Structures are given as C-alpha cells and as structure tokens.
C-alpha cells in the first residue's frame, strides 16, 4: 500500500484543447478533491459552450455526488444557454464533479472554445453548520471550535469531553487552584447544572498568603425556609477551612467578599436530585499575611516605619548615638527581622543600651577624677591629674576626656593617652640664705 498524496488545495481545469475550439462528440469528466474539512469554490475564468435551450447539445454539468449544482452553456453575451457569470460555485463537501459533453456538430459561424475554471479549498465552518438531519444532535454538545479543515469540541468548566469527542460529562472534582488569583464557578454557570452535582474545588496558595473570595456575580443556590430560618438542606456551597468550622452557603443573596484566614480553602458544591440552583461564580485573590506593628524602642528606632507589615517584609533596628543593640544579654552588631508566614516576626525586637567606655586607663604617677559622677557611660567626662608637684600632665591640667560614641575616652585636644611628665629642677625645699 502506498499512502495517497494529500489532495491539492487549489487547481485549474479547462476543456480539451482550450483555448482552441473543443472537439465534437466529447464526453469528459473531472473529479476534483480537496482535503477533508474543506469545500471547493469553483470560479470560471471563461466559458464559451454552444448555447442551446437547457444546454441540450453541448454542456458542462457541475455535480456534488449525484446532486446537480449547475448545468452551463453559452457565453457571457448569448441570449440562449445558461452561463454562470461571475458567481463562483461552492460545493457542500470536499469533492466536485465536472462533466463536459458535446454533440456531433457546431454552428459554422462561431467556433466555441469551451471553458476554463480555477478551484480552491475553502475551510468549512463546521461549528456554524446546521444540525445534521440524521437526528444525531449537534456536532458538539457544549462548545464547538472551528479549525482549518476540522473542528474541536470543548466543554464548560465542571465538565469534561467524553471519548466520542463531542459530548460532555459533568466532572468537577479535584480542581486545584494554586495561582495567586483566579476565577471559578459552578458547572455550567450561569445555567443550572444537572441534578446530583458534587463538586470539590481546592484553592491552595503559598504559605504566608491568605485568600479572599469575592462572589461578584449572580448567586443562586436553593435554600429551604424553616421555622428556624433559612437552611441549606438540599443544595449548598460549603466553604471549609482547616481547623475551623465550615460554612454552608445558599440562597439568592451573594455572600460578597469573604476573607479566609488561611492559605488553603475547600469549596464543596452539592445539589441533590431535585430543585434548581443557577449556581455561583467567584473571583479569588490573595494577600500577604500581616505581622504586628513593632512597638517603639527606647533610645532607638525601627525602620522602615509603616502602618502595616506583611509577610517577607524586613525591619531594621538602629540605636541612637551612644547606644548599642542588645538581645538576650548579648551585644550584636546589627539587627533585622523578617515577617514570617505565620504572621510573627522571626526575631524578638532588641533593646538599646547605653554604651560605656570601660574603666579609664590608670595613669602612672597620677589618677583620674570622674567629673560626671562615677560612670563610664557615653558622654561621661573624666579628668586626669598627675601627682604634683613632681609630675605635670601632658597638655595641661585642664584636659578632660569624654566617653565618645566609638567607646573611646577622647580628649578635647587630641591627646591619645594621658601622660605624666616629671617636673625637673624644682625641689620642694630650697636652701635658704639669711646670713650676709
């Protein structure tokens, strides 16, 4: 077996000997084919066949199967015959048959040249075609999509295509929605679904996000009014959140916007074998989990300072000048914490403690005086002194040292370390001379 070559998408056909006059006693047939799913459009570029009533003597017949689409003869100017003019002929299917037949004689005055025609494949829009008359129903039970040379059937949400590739069957379980936002609705919405629906939808997004359901459109789920009020006895949409009591929705009133304090929510849509509900439609969106606004820090600040903090936000703590960051009794170089998916900061806020410069270095042959109390803290002031009169302080007796932000005792006159310089040549007692 050799595979058949694909039929051409276009072509040309003309009478024998065209454009010379066609022979007598001719009976010739052309079978035109284009690929499945296409129809043939035949356009005559010229037709000049002996004219006669009902094209009795010479004729060109165009048939689709056994159905005659046209029988032509004559020319553009002849009063007799049947000329196709400029109108193309469209075959219902992908084949077309041309039959050309001539008799034994032609008028002597005029030599007819026959015909010339071009054909091309035209896609059939199967979806817009009328329902087949064989009672088999529409091509597609729900959605028909035309394609070049063919068509596809598809189904509304909540249904899936059967193996016959044209009809749909209800199938609405196991729908998992994990994108940050999306849309979902009951099967066939806004048309009522068949009875006995049990659909389950799961919206599950990344941890650290919460879900909001927004019922924006028409909402209609059959409810039963009892003495205890409206009850969702036979039809309902159940909203279930882990470790929380689920909610059953029904009635004609849209629930509007529902904030779900979770990153996972299950929706169970149930109808029994009676009653009628048009269903529901919702858009869902997600928001980052919030963390508590951090409190103020004494002698420090939190940056950035925002009105709300969300999952993955970072905050930093900086202490005022002269203060150090302490956490758990330990000093740290810097501090930052991130808002976690559970809505908690991953580290507890630190504290800012006043820095100190430590004990001032003892001074050989001198001492130190605390001018601002006995403290080593930031901005404390000390003054060194030397044991006079045997030593004097380098830089002068009035030099003070201040505890600065870099935790160094620093003098006002750039003396790095205080030093006692011995006093020379000045005894405390002098030899006295009274006698002259």
């Amino acid at each position, binding site marked *: 077996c050799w595979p058949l070559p694909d039929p051409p998408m276009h072509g040309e056909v003309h009478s024998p000997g065209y454009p010379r006059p066609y022979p007598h006693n001719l009976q010739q047939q052309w079978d035109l084919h284009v690929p499945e799913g296409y129809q043939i459009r035949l356009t005559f570029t010229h037709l000049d066949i002996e004219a006669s009533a009902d094209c009795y003597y010479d004729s060109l017949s165009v048939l689709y199967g056994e159905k005659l689409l046209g029988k032509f003869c004559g020319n553009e100017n002849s009063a007799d015959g049947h000329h196709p003019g400029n109108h193309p002929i469209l075959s219902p299917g992908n084949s077309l048959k041309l039959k050309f037949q001539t008799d034994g004689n032609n008028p002597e005055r005029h030599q007819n040249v026959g015909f010339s025609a071009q054909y091309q494949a035209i896609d059939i829009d199967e979806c817009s075609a009328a329902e087949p008359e064989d009672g088999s129903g529409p091509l597609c039970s729900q959605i028909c999509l035309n394609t070049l040379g063919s068509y596809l059937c598809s189904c509304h949400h909540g249904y899936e295509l059967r193996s016959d590739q044209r009809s749909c069957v209800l199938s609405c379980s196991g729908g998992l929605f994990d994108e940050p936002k999306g849309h979902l609705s009951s099967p066939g919405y806004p048309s009522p679904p068949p009875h006995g629906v049990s659909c389950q939808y799961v919206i599950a997004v990344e941890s650290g996000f919460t879900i909001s359901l927004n019922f924006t459109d028409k909402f209609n789920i059959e409810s039963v009014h009892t003495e205890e009020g409206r009850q969702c006895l036979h039809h309902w949409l159940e909203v279930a959140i882990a470790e929380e009591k689920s909610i059953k929705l029904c009635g004609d009133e849209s629930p509007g916007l529902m904030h779900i304090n979770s990153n996972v929510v299950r929706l169970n849509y149930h109808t029994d074998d009676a009653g009628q509900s048009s269903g529901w439609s919702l858009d869902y969106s997600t928001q980052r989990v919030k963390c508590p606004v951090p409190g103020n820090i004494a002698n420090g600040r939190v940056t950035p300072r925002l009105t709300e903090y969300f999952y993955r936000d970072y905050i930093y703590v900086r202490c005022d000048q002269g203060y150090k960051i302490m956490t758990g009794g330990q000093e740290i170089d810097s501090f930052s914490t991130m808002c976690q998916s559970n809505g908690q900061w991953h580290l507890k806020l630190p504290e800012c403690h006043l820095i100190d410069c430590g004990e001032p270095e003892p001074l050989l042959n001198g001492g130190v005086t605390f001018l601002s109390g006995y403290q080593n803290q930031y901005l404390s002031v000390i003054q060194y002194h030397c044991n006079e009169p*045997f*030593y004097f302080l380098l830089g002068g007796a009035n030099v003070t040292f201040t505890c600065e932000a870099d935790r160094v005792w620093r003098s006002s006159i750039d003396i790095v370390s205080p030093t006692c310089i*011995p*006093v*020379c040549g000045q*005894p405390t*007692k002098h030899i006295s001379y009274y006698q002259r």
Partner: protein
Amino acid sequence: IIGGSDAPDDTIPWQVLLSVSGDRGGGMVIADRWIMTAAHVLMRGSQVVPSSTVRIYMGLNEVTENLSAYVFPSSLHVHPEYHNPRHTDFNNDIALIKLQDPITFHSSIMPVCLPPEGAEYETGVIGLVSGFGTTGTINKRILTNKLKYLNLPLVSQQTCSASMTSLRRGTSEIPNLTDNMFCAGIPEGGKDSCQGDSGGPFTLTENGRFWAAGIVSWGANCGMKDRYGVYTRVANYVNWIKKTMQEN
C-alpha cells in the same frame, strides 16, 4: 665638698650617691630610668666596671640612713670618646646609667633639668655643687657622711687655663682643659669639690629651675689658692644624652 654646708633634706633631690666597688662617686637623676655621672667614675683603667659592682643610692642626705635601699643599674653607657687610661685626659667625661625599674618621684627624689636650648655659661654666675666627697684639704682629708653643698662662681676658660699653666711648671703631666669643660671656684681657695664628689651635679638656675650645667670631673688638688675645679660642660652633650636614652 670643701668649705661647704650640710644640705637640708629635699633641697638637692637629684643628688645620687654611687658606690662603685666601694669607691664613692656622685651622680644626678635626669629621668625616671636614667642617672648621669662622670665617665671616670665607671672606669677602671680602660674597662667599664661591671654593672653588678655599682650601687645606686637616691634620696639620701646622710649615708648612714637606709643604706639597704639601693638599686643596681641595668646598663652603663660611657661616652664613646672618653679615653683616659692614665688619668690625664678627662675630655668627654660623661656617662649614663640606666636603671632596671623606673623611679617614682617625690620630694626626696626628683630629676634635674638638662641644659636649656642655647644655655649660656656666664662667667661669675654662681652655681651649686654638691656631693658626699671629702671635706678636708689635701693635708687633712675628711670623709663626710652628709650631703654637702657649695656655691661657686663660674670661671672664664682663660682664667682657668692660666691657672693650669702655672701648675704645669712643677708638674710633669697635667690634663688639658678643653671646650667640653668649664671651671668653677674662687681664687682664694678653701671652697671646692673634691674626691668622692666626681660625677655629682653642678647646677645653675634659670626661671627658678635648676639645670645640670656641669658634672664634677677633675682638679689639681682641692680647695687650693688659684686653683679651680673642672666640670664637664653638659650643654655640649645634650644630643648624645637624648640619643643614648632613645636608643636604650
């Protein structure tokens, strides 16, 4: 010190008593680790004495008191150009002693200043010389245990040199007087530094401060008429002193 007086307590706090192999010498405190003295005090012939033979006493006014409170030097630094094997050349008679531990100064122990920049030795200006050396004349030498002091005027180089010339007439070899020395004393005699004072301070004052103008060095006898004591001119050695201290 001949013709001097007992020094009251704390009046010459830089005075140092050296005991070098049992011989007395003088010195002066110039920093918390440094003593200045005469080179010949630390020499025996051409050799510097071992450090262990040098005892250093400070803050004493009387030798009998607290003699156990002495310290040893950590190093001795004799001027490199001092060459006096036959005791006839006292040029560059200066040495430094480094102490093992720094001294804490108080009223009994204080440093004397080094010569100020551009220090002048003006003839006639009276200085102060002190020591634990002998107090008698050549005929009757008496060892004192008390710190003595004496005020003596500076003598011009010319006068001093002339006195040396007269001395040479009857003596075979007298040390030369160089520019690194100066003289102090009185022509009538009877007041002078003497044996045991060597290395001790001869101080001048400026703006109320005592500075080390000289180091007791040598002389022809002691306290004689027309004779003068010769002192090392410290101002000529300030750079060497600073350099030695910095390098050690």
